[in-house]
């Protein structure tokens, strides 16, 4: 990608993050305590590397970083997003590999979960309190729906693939089949061992 486009993307993302943080002083104060630390995200799908640098109470977005990386995460965009947002998510459970400080990641997870951006404040400045409150309510509902959808989307997709379209067997059916195969393998092994024993007896001429 031409560095100009990439620099444009980074600048837009950085501006958006910091503009949002303007309306959440609590998060800014917590970020300031992590000043100088860096989080590298090696995103596999889409292929992209982002380095997020905590600079005071701001977040810088970089492509190149020659300094020390505090924590590096490697995984798909959805997995990384879930890891940062979901309280129960673990890197191993989401197929995300982590190098560096897990403490810094835990801090960021905690900050992301407690993120409380007052979206109504900038709207109120533009439109007044009453319309801003209505729009803010709609935005909050949309946010909840999006979060719920993100949580349930992988499970719903898996169910559709196996139960509705029958492209893959349902989990229970697959597990029963796998158990049967394991039993069969065990029985075959026993039979083989018994046959070997009988052959030995025949060779010795036992009755």
């Amino acid at each position, binding site marked *: 990608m031409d560095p100009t486009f990439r*620099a444009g993307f980074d600048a837009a993302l950085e501006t958006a993050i910091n503009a949002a943080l303007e309306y959440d002083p609590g998060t800014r104060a917590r970020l300031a305590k992590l000043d100088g630390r860096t989080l590298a995200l090696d995103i596999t799908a889409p292929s992209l590397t982002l380095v997020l640098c905590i600079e005071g109470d701001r977040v810088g977005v970089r*492509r190149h970083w020659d300094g020390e990386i505090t924590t590096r995460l490697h995984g798909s965009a959805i997995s990384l997003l879930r890891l940062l947002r979901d309280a129960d998510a673990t890197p191993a459970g989401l197929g995300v590999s982590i190098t560096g400080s897990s403490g810094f990641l835990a801090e960021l997870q905690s900050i992301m979960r407690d993120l409380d951006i007052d979206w109504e404040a900038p709207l109120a400045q533009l439109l007044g309190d009453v319309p801003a409150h209505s729009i803010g309510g709609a935005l909050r509902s949309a946010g909840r729906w999006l979060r719920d959808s993100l949580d349930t989307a992988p499970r719903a997709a898996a169910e559709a693939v196996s139960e509705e379209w029958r492209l893959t067997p349902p989990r229970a059916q697959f597990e029963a089949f796998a158990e049967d195969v394991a039993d069969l393998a065990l029985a075959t092994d026993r039979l083989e061992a018994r046959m070997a024993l009988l052959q030995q007896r025949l060779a010795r001429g036992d009755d």
Partner: protein
Amino acid sequence: MYNAGIVWQSRHKMKDRKTTHFGYQEVPVEEKAGRVADVFHSVAARYDVMNDLMSGGIHRLWKRFTIEMSAARPGQTILDIAGGTGDLTARFSRIVGPEGTVVLADINESMLKVGRDRLLDRGIAGNVEPVQADAQYLPFPDNTFDCITIAFGLRNVTDKDLALRSMLRVLKPGGRLLVLEFSKPESKLLEKVYDQYSFRLLPFMGKLVANDADSYRYLAESIRMHPDQETLKQMMADAGFVDCEYHNMTGGVVALHKGIKP
């Protein structure tokens, strides 16, 4: 502006004297700096507006990438040559913090004044030192800077080899030089579009906004006379830099060259 008689005389003596290019013209070596100075005295007041207008604001992205590649850190000493109106200096000042220093250097007094005033207006002071200096003869001790940047300035320097050697001298071993400069577009189609833009639209905009078409025509011509990517990379290696490389931006309209002092 220049006295026509002096220019006439100097042109007639040119056969016996060493010359260099000033846009598409050949001028005696000792005249180029004065002529470039006149151009920048003329454009200084509206330099930022014109930069935004001419590049559609993209120069900010080119400079952002330069900052990233500088790997600047708190406490470092950085030299911003041809720093003009202080765009890079402002960002470096924030990165190096109160323990570091950024030297804003420009050969042109008008540009330096505009840059210094603009930085002060934005509350950027304390770790910034404006210095009027010629890139060919940098007035600093050997091994002083962790990083040197020169953005859209090298093409205006009379003796680029001399300037590169001067930069090498004042860099600390392991320090890096970053040259951000207009270069040669990678595609022929882009080159044609770019030519039309530079030689027709650019002087027109210069006339409209700054009432100075000639200066902006010089800017377009000087870009064409500047060494292309590979040539500049070789010049840096010849000057003594190692690990020289460049990144094309916007299809090669601009290139960022990087070299390390061994």
